[in-house]
């Protein structure tokens, strides 16, 4: 049972960044505020761990009307903060959950403290119904979702113990990535991904399900859906790319996005490798990915750089985008042999 939830502040409990606009501080996120109240009514404790000055915690107390049993505000690691809060409240790590909008922070905490239940804010809104949070009634659906998180925890624990390269681990646990043309039935999930992926999203522009439906049918466009599974479980549709097939010898990819579920599992690298190879096979000379350049999607920029893509220096335009491109001659980034590609027109 979870006895304490440790919350990040910026873009998690608050719908914005505390230090960004001092004269107009962000409100509490209404969904998270109601989760805070619901869990508190069940006797679950709340705590804060944030890279902010201590005043931010006071502000959060005030704006959510919730009391927090502990707060760690500072520039150290979140894993250290969660461990310190757990000790301060005399709990064990299995009784603690950690919620953060930043997938890298989540990955760090999950790696350092594999017994802690690590959740995104979207997960946290759902998790109140899971058995670990002691709801009055547990539905089958809630039990199923909680089980998906247990799979993740088992994978993390296995990965932490594994002595070898990441690639060897992915192979050992039977990682399967499937890249296939998206179909109409994928549109709702693609919309959800386009809203929820910030750190692994090249465009930063959310699209509706209907817009994805149009793109999937449009001639001259290729929308591919990426699915992920391994021996621990099936993560379903985790990512996508929208490509404009241009006669002039360039494949331009206006959207690449990937769920945090795929983080560290070779999926985005495989997708970029596949894009390069498919474009080259189709006779294109260059692959281009226009990418919004922000602090938040540095992980996307890293994946582009790892795939050998570069932008012209100082190229981020007025819209904040830079076009990352690479030639398709010479050696292309690899697609590992665990990636299955279904027929692409």
């Amino acid at each position, binding site marked *: 049972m979870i006895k304490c939830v440790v919350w990040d502040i910026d873009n998690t409990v608050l719908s914005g960044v505390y230090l960004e606009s001092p004269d107009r501080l962000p409100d509490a996120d209404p969904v998270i505020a109601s989760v805070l109240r619901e869990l508190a009514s069940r006797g679950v404790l709340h705590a804060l761990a944030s890279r902010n000055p201590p005043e931010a915690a006071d502000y959060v107390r005030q704006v959510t009307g919730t009391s927090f049993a502990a707060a760690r505000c500072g520039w*150290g690691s979140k894993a250290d903060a969660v461990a310190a809060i757990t000790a301060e409240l005399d709990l064990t790590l299995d009784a603690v959950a950690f919620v953060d909008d930043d997938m890298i922070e989540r990955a760090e905490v999950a790696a350092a403290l594999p017994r802690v239940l690590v959740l995104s804010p979207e997960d946290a809104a759902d998790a109140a119904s899971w058995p670990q949070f002691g709801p009055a009634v547990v539905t089958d659906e809630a039990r199923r979702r909680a089980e998906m998180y247990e799979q993740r925890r088992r994978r993390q624990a296995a990965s*932490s113990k594994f002595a070898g*390269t990441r*690639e060897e681990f992915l192979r050992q646990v039977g990682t399967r990535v499937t890249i296939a043309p998206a179909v109409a039935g994928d549109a709702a999930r693609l919309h959800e991904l386009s809203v929820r992926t910030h750190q692994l999203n090249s465009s930063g522009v959310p699209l509706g399900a209907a817009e994805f439906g149009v793109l999937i049918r449009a001639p001259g466009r290729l929308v591919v859906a990426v699915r992920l599974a391994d021996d621990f479980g099936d993560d379903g549709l985790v990512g996508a790319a929208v490509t404009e097939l241009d006669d002039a010898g360039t494949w331009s990819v206006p959207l690449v996005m990937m769920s945090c579920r795929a983080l560290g599992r070779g999926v985005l690298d495989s997708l970029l490798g596949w894009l390069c190879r498919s474009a080259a096979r189709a006779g294109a000379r260059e692959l281009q990915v226009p990418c919004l350049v922000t602090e938040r999607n540095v992980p996307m*920029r*890293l*994946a582009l750089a*790892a795939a050998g893509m570069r*932008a012209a*220096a100082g190229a981020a335009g007025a819209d904040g985008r830079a076009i990352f491109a690479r030639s398709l001659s010479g050696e292309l980034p690899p697609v590992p042999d665990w990636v299955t590609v279904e027929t692409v027109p």
Partner: protein
Amino acid sequence: MTGAEPAILDDLRQLLVTVTGRPDLGSVAAQTPLFGAGVGLDSLAGTMLLRQVQRRYGVDVAAEDLNLDALETLGSLAAFIAERVGEGPWPEGQGPC
């Protein structure tokens, strides 16, 4: 190479071991490519490495280097950092944020 660079390089090797969970990278050569075969730095490990660099040295590589060319090798990353800071790493938890 400036005076601080060898110390920074040693520090980066330790950070690389931490973010990848691979002790064998503690002796990686300064000129080994970080992307692709060998080290195989991916988004996750790469972002964690850049954040550690920012916490320890106050250097925001991603903000200054659009193409992340500084991440070509540990040697190029050490040089990038050394150009921007005079001394070695700050003691744990005492660097600027």
